[in-house]
């Protein structure tokens, strides 16, 4: 036992005395969360729009006010003539125009329905889609509040509800994915590099020619990274809840439990990589390439898995982070308990056990 604790202490010394490792360990998650949360979000803010209001009646004014209220839109100009709209698009200053026809309120009140025209710059189809959907939701909201006050005023209210993410926040999609990415990257990278470093320095030779059980060496190496990864996870969660307004509805305990499994899977992957590499550089490249690309592609937070060909969907099933992503979304956003995610958890657990088993089996008790 004393052997083990001395070993773990030694590993902590290695981590805390190497600024590069420290930076990687704690800088990377923060940078990734901030990057994905703020810079790389698919949420569109402060879109400049114009409004051409022929009606100038109470409802059109109210709607205009509602549109300018949130931080999605910034009203550039209120036009009086539709001919000026095109000029705004051509200059590229605006992304969207809204046109209220004359007699808008009257038509709505008398006939129970009226139209407004929403014109979007579709040269960037994704942006156009997103911003028109914002307009749509603002209009729908307005209809609903009106309907509550005067039930007879509108006959049909179209059903369009955005569940879990009514404000179309980007962070809810990214945080679980980035969490998986960070845990995988950091754990795989750190374990593989720290074991290969012992090989490179030649200290592995001395460790092997000693009575210590090689498994103990491995476990002692994994312990600090395991603990530090949990700290990392806490930092990520704090950042995403406080900075990115990420909801947290489920059990913290359950989330940490599932995360521990992913960390273990990552640690054993790192061990596997270290087995077949001889230099820190190679270990680093394999870990980065081998982790980054599948995690980005097949987790589902960047590219929807549903749209992929069947073959790729099958491959995605082999990526642990895909299951982790599903579980974290269920716990954090939907606030579901274990009964809802037991299947995914079981798959993740099976992967972890299999990886641990293979890496222990393949661990070399000699030099070659």
């Amino acid at each position, binding site marked *: 036992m004393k052997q083990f604790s*001395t070993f773990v202490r*030694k590993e902590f*010394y*290695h981590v805390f005395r190497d600024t590069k490792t420290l930076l990687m360990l704690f800088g990377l998650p923060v940078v990734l969360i901030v990057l994905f949360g703020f810079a790389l979000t698919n949420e569109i803010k402060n879109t400049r729009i114009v409004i051409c209001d022929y009606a100038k009646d109470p409802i059109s004014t109210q709607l205009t006010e509602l549109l300018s209220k949130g931080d999605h839109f910034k009203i550039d100009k209120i036009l009086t003539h539709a001919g000026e709209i095109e000029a705004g698009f051509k200059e590229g200053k605006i992304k969207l125009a809204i046109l209220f026809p004359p007699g808008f309120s009257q038509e709505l009140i008398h006939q129970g329905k009226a139209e407004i025209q929403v014109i979007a710059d579709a040269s960037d189809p994704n942006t156009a889609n997103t911003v028109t959907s914002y307009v749509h939701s603002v209009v729908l909201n307005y209809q609903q509040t009106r309907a509550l006050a005067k039930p007879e005023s509108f006959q049909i209210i179209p059903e369009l509800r955005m569940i879990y993410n009514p404000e179309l926040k980007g962070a809810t999609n990214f945080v679980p994915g980035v969490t998986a990415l960070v845990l995988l990257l950091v754990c795989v990278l750190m374990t593989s590099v720290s074991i290969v470093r012992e090989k490179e320095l030649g200290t592995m030779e*001395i460790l*092997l020619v000693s009575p210590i059980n090689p498994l103990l060496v491995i476990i002692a190496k994994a312990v600090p990274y395991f603990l530090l990864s949990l700290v990392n996870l806490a930092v990520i969660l704090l950042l995403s809840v406080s900075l990115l307004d990420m909801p947290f509805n489920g059990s913290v305990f359950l989330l940490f439990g599932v995360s521990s499994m992913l960390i273990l899977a990552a640690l054993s992957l790192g061990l596997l990589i270290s087995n077949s590499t001889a230099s820190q550089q190679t270990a680093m490249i394999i870990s980065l390439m081998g982790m980054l690309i599948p995690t980005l592609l097949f987790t589902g937070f960047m590219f929807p898995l549903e749209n992929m060909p069947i073959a790729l969907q099958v491959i995605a099933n082999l990526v642990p982070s895909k299951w982790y992503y599903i579980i974290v979304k269920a716990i954090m956003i939907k606030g579901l308990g274990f009964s809802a995610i037991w299947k995914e958890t079981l798959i993740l657990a099976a992967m972890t056990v299999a990886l641990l088993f293979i890496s222990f089996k393949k661990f070399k008790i000699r030099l070659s």
Partner: protein
Amino acid sequence: MMDVQVRGLRKTYGKPPVTAVDTISFDVKKGELFGLIGPDGAGKTSIFRMLTTLLLPDGGTASVNGFDIVKDYKFIRERVGYMPGKFSLYQDLTVEENLHFFATLFNTTVEENYALVKDIYIQIEPFKKRRAGNLSGGMKQKLALCCALIHRPLVLFLDEPTTGVDTVSRKEFWEMLKRLKEQGITILVSTPYMDEATLCERIALLQEGKILSIDTPANIIRSYPDQLFAIKSDQMSWLLKELRNNPEVKTCNSFGEYHHISFKEIAADTESALINYLKKAGHSNLELFKTAPTIEDCFINLMN
């Protein structure tokens, strides 16, 4: 009682296989200071790695302290101390931390075996708070030796401990080894420096994975077949060429300040005849005298 027994040990690497250790056999007695002497690539490190159970042999058997290097590797790992050729301690841990770590690794404490390493450790103790990576070459070597000794091993393997260490530290190092030997520890040491061979009790001369000769250094020198002469002039490289082309001369090799030569046949006037011949050829300040062969002479002789 033999502490190390090697029988027909063989090791090959890669495909097509390159033979690194070619069917060698030797014994090391308990408490002996045994040297493996040979140039780089002679197979010294491979032999050490097989004996310390780090590599599996491709043929033959060997035992250390009575334990088989393949079957009983766990027992060997408890009993031997190993110092690899490359400085292999944790550079980011201090001197003290390294020593304590290796003591714990072997289930012992620094205090328990301090007597054994005291002489050596005292020299690096002023720097005990310094990180191992910031030590000088000689001090790193001393620390590595302390760490290899801290669990009082029965057999100590030192792979090229003096490579890259200055002359003074090398001398000190060998004196430390002699004192350790007096404590009853069997020591196997490898070195490419032929002048260190005479500091061992017995040596094996290695070349391309084969043993050329095993004996005490004195016996190996005694068995040198010819009378050896040292020769010198002001034109050394020309002299070497000239002597090698001379039909009377059997061998001629450069040894620092002098060339060592042996003759095919020695008559009463051989020496004076050579001097006269070389003088006529234009050499100045000629010097020729009898000399005792060194291990290097023996090595070159055995190599051919």
